[in-house]
């Protein structure tokens, strides 16, 4: 087959009917540009939500849950005369400390493992905050500030004040933006913290942070490990959580199993379980994006199919004469398939350019996210892979759409056309 000749004929055909070629192209252009905009925006949203959650979520969290014993408690009668067995139904949770035994040492050991990026110990408790007579429920977390900065970039979440003051001062805390608003507390104000067991401490607010997640900003507060241990009245080895980040977060489930085998007495939770709802959202958005993109490309494909069919009906005489002068069926197929592919590639490249342009505009458009989201414009991803696959799918669509009309063209019987 003579591809060069087929190419010359195909391009001459296209150029001699510019209007028709451009209309055919526009179908693909529209499909591909929408594909680019959709996928850039959707993956941008996914990325943003995941980053926001992942920033603050440990890859694996180790803690000691409040557990009920599954088995019933059975006791023998105490008196000599009492020969009965007592079975304790509907037992209440045991007053157990939620302390991880040897937590700090366990943290150090885990930190030395090669998969681990770092471990941040935490001691947290539910508390009431008072600024005046009203009690506001929340939590307080005692943290190791350097590792918290390193793993969860807490320092970047500070709106007012700084973590340095938290490190230096005693009886100081930083509180969430929402919590500060509820209490009408400002930096420098003193608030009272009360634990469920009744311990109470007056602390000074040295900073206000915001994660961009309302539920957290309205309840959380941080202080040093020592401060929280002091409020709770526990010893300095008392740790309730170990939050760790791994070098590769996708290996979290595997690594969790390995850790669990080493430390069977604590409970471990990986980020995929903790963020199941966000991951499900991502999955649904991906499916939606895929469905819309495929629909767009199919519509563009049908456009090309129609135009190619019309084109071939218009070119019956030419096909007949080419076959009469010695062109084979394959040559004819090549001519029309090439036309279709040229439409596809030209339309596809135009679509990529337009898609890029509009995603760029979108990425510059202010996003009315409210004060809680740490985001000012629409989240948009620019990935070469999306552009490559856009072009590839455009190519594939036109290949399919052009194939059947081209095969039909190859079957044209020249005698029928020439004899009229």
């Amino acid at each position, binding site marked *: 087959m*003579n591809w060069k*000749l087929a190419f010359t*004929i195909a391009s*001459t*055909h296209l150029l*001699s009917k510019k209007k028709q070629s451009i209309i055919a192209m526009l179908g693909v252009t529209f499909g591909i540009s929408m594909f680019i905009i959709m996928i850039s925006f959707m993956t941008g949203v996914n990325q943003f939500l995941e980053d926001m959650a992942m920033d603050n979520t440990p890859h694996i969290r180790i803690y000691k849950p409040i557990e009920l014993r599954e088995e019933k408690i059975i006791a023998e009668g105490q008196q000599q005369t009492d020969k009965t067995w007592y079975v304790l139904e509907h037992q209440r949770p045991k007053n157990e400390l939620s302390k991880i035994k040897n937590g700090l040492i366990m943290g150090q050991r885990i930190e030395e493992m090669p998969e681990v990026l770092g471990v941040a110990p935490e001691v947290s408790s539910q508390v009431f905050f008072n600024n005046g007579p009203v009690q506001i429920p929340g939590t307080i977390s005692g943290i190791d500030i350097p590792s918290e900065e390193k793993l969860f970039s807490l320092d970047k979440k500070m709106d007012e004040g700084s973590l340095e003051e938290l490190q230096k001062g005693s009886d100081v805390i930083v509180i969430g933006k929402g919590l500060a608003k509820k209490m009408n507390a400002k930096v420098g104000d003193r608030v009272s913290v009360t634990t469920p067991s009744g311990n109470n401490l007056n602390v000074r607010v040295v900073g206000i942070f915001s994660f961009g997640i309302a539920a957290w900003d309205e309840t959380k507060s941080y202080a040093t490990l020592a401060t929280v241990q002091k409020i709770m009245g526990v010893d300095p080895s008392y740790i309730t959580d170990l939050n760790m980040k791994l070098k590769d977060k996708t290996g979290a489930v595997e690594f969790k199993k390995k850790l669990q085998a080493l430390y069977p007495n604590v409970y471990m939770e990986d980020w995929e379980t903790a963020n199941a709802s966000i991951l499900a959202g991502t999955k649904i958005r991906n499916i939606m994006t895929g469905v819309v993109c495929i629909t767009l490309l199919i519509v563009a494909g049908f456009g090309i199919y129609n135009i190619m069919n019309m084109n071939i009906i218009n070119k019956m*005489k*030419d096909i*007949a*004469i*080419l*076959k*009469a*002068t*010695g*062109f*084979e*069926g*394959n*040559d004819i197929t090549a001519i029309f398939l090439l036309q279709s592919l040229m439409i596809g590639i030209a339309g596809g490249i135009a679509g990529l350019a337009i898609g890029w342009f509009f995603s760029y505009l979108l990425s510059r458009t202010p996003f009315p996210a409210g004060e809680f989201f740490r985001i000012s414009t629409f989240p948009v991803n620019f990935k070469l892979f999306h552009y490559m696959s856009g072009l590839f799918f455009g190519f594939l669509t036109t290949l399919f759409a052009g194939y059947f009309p081209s095969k039909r063209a190859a079957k044209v019987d*020249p*005698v029928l056309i*020439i*004899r009229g």
Partner: protein
Amino acid sequence: MSTILKATNIVKYFYEPEKFQVLKGISFDANKGEFLSIIGKSGCGKSTLLYILSTMDTDYEGTLEINGQKTTGQGQNQLAHFRNEHMGFVFQFHYLLPEFTALQNVMMPALKLAKYSPDEIEHRAIEKLRLVGMDEYAMKHASKLSGGQQQRVAIARALINDPTVIMGDEPTGNLDKANSQRVFEIFKQLATENQQTIITVTHDPDFANGSDRIIEMEDGHIIGTHFPNGEHS
């Protein structure tokens, strides 16, 4: 004189609208350098015969041999290649590709055959256009040429691969007197000087009478053969 085309007992049916025998056993030979005309009334089957001879119509009984090769039973692609190399066509309606120039139209079958380099093909195409007196119009688009001019370009295209047989389906049917005469003279020259065999179907008595041999058909039979300029073997 050597036989270039040999048709033996060609039988052809049409199935639409009902089964009908168009050709009822046609046998004849054509020699190298012979200018042959097929005449007959409309519907006698002469065009049908020509398209069978052209190898484009493969749905027939009997055998056809061209240039020593049996073409009956060959595949479509083989036949396409065969036509490309050994046959030239001139039709009643010129059938040039309207988007291309006269020169490109002439070059097309040669580019397909790819026996020569594109430069050489262009050179040869201009030669052929000169032969039919159309070299001045080489760069004009086919759609911008008059009927007579288009027919001459079509002849140049038929000649580009130096075919052994040139077939014409009423090549002058759509032309005025002067242009018909011109086409006739080109054919005559090809037969005598280049020793190419010419087979044309025609309604034009002047055209037929100028050829070497006339085959007259009626109702799917050959009913007579004439040698208008005296028989010569």
